[in-house]
């Protein structure tokens, strides 16, 4: 029989997280610090709206780009919260989670051989999606000493004649790093000078704990060079609804819509109706959840200090990225032993790129009570390592 598989797909390495998931799900009484989604339920008024839409029989496709009233609300929201203006008719596309946006943006923009700059550590999808779109991923290794922010120098170093696009994933999963206005201005200068585009994944934009989030598209000269990805998963605790959006110049959105139309048709209708409600009346919920995350973030930093675990203070998303280099174990070994000996699941930093080696991603999308139990176990484990 012929090989049924595509060489391109088989060459892609499976996600490094899978292994931990498999082992952890076999264990009893595992305390996890390994999730990448909110612990809150979707606020009830948003769920209620989804239920209503089903009751009213709104069970059909929407237009390819998404419900018009949803796109209008997205436009209002981005103006209100991120200070960027997008025309709801031509510049906004509602997608199946932020993840679809990553995929179709790359497919719509890349020609074979085009280089895409990906700062790491980062979310696991960018690199394989670039490969699937026939692009060439070029990673930029971010450094802890810069608090995992992307600097102008690091960017310049990796730019070649073939570079077309920079992926900008801030606030960052897994490091929790945020780019401040000044950091973005430095980057923007280089982007414009070298005639590049930016794919700005701002899915965690609502979760910043020191100053407001800045969208790179809001800087002078950047709107026309930027695709902005955002969504409902993190800000409104709506991961399972699978709903996000991507915004940018009409020329690109039009081509992305083509892929979306043929591959997906439209984002889930129920989710879209619920999302309208989220954007109209959800600001208070977001603020409340943000405050809760911030309290847990402080608690975690405090406990790390107590147990002598080195960690820079992150101000975004719901992750901390402590350094474990002093223990002489790789991230993978550390995480595996922590799981086996104390039944605590974390994600090794190396799952997010080679430069994540020596770090762990710890999520604080958990109640204080749950964090307490997990951190006690982590502390016990660390003390044992220190004695050994």
């Amino acid at each position, binding site marked *: 029989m012929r090989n049924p598989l595509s060489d391109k797909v088989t060459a892609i390495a499976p996600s490094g997280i899978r292994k931990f998931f498999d082992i952890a799900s076999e264990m009893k009484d595992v305390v996890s610090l390994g999730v*990448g989604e909110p612990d809150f339920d979707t606020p009830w008024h948003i769920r209620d709206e989804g239920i209503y839409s089903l009751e009213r029989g709104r069970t059909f496709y929407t237009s390819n780009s998404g419900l018009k009233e949803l796109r209008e609300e997205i436009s209002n929201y981005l103006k209100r919260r991120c200070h960027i203006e997008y025309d709801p008719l031509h510049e906004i596309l509602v997608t199946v989670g932020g993840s679809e946006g990553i995929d179709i943006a790359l497919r719509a923009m890349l020609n074979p051989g085009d280089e895409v700059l990906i700062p790491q550590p980062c979310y696991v999808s960018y690199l394989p999606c670039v490969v699937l779109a026939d692009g060439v991923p070029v990673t930029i290794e971010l450094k802890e000493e810069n608090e995992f922010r992307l600097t102008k120098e690091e960017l310049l170093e990796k730019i070649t004649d073939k570079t077309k696009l920079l992926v900008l994933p801030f606030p960052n999963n897994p490091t929790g790093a945020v780019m401040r206005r000044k950091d973005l201005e430095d980057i923007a200068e280089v982007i414009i000078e070298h005639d590049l585009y930016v794919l700005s994944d701002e899915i965690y934009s609502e979760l910043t704990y020191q100053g407001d989030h800045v969208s790179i598209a809001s800087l002078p000269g950047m709107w026309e060079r930027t695709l902005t990805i955002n969504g409902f998963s993190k800000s409104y605790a709506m991961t399972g609804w699978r709903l996000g959006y991507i915004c940018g110049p009409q020329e690109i959105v039009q081509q992305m819509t083509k892929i979306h139309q043929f591959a997906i048709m439209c984002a889930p209708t129920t989710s879209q109706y619920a999302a309208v409600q989220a954007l109209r009346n959800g600001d208070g919920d977001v603020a409340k959840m943000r405050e809760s995350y911030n309290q847990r973030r402080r*608690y975690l930093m405090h406990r790390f200090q107590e147990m002598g675990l080195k960690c820079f203070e992150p101000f975004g998303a719901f992750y901390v990225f402590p350094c474990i280099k002093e223990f002489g174990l790789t991230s993978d070994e550390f995480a595996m032993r922590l799981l086996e000996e104390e039944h605590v699941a974390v994600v090794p930093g190396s799952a997010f790129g080679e430069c994540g080696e020596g770090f762990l991603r710890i999520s604080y999308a958990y109640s204080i009570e749950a964090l307490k139990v997990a951190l006690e176990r982590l502390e016990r484990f660390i003390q044992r390592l220190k004695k050994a």
Partner: protein
Amino acid sequence: MREQILTFLEKNSKIDLKELAVLLGSSEEVIANEVAKMEEEQVICGYHTLIDWEKTSSEKVTALIEVRVTPQRGQGFDSIAERIYNYPEVQSVYLISGAYDLLVILQGKTLREVSSFVSDKLSTLDTVLSTATHFILKKYKDYGTILGKKSKDERMLVTP
């Protein structure tokens, strides 16, 4: 800051003030002072415990009683409310807008005990025009807490 402290205490009056200080990015001393001040000012009126009596062997009946009254000259509803709330079996008394005036929440050991309170003590007050008693059959949610339901984390253990 006050509002944040109160939000926590309202949910968990047993919270360790040192821990609360960490969560709010403040110091234990500041928090303790603020709590003491609020106790002094009667902003904090007590530290009660939410109990699901259904789960215990003790028998309790709770009733909501709508009371229509004639307000008294110069004193409005306050003095009649006082007459009612002084009974120890009365848990809460609220002045209400709408079809009736006072809502009285009463807890007794038996149905009979509650009804005799209404007929003997409440209805006989001069200013009381009428009462309507509603017995509570089941409590689903009280003070913002869903009773008897433990939430379980249904998320996958590890996700990117």
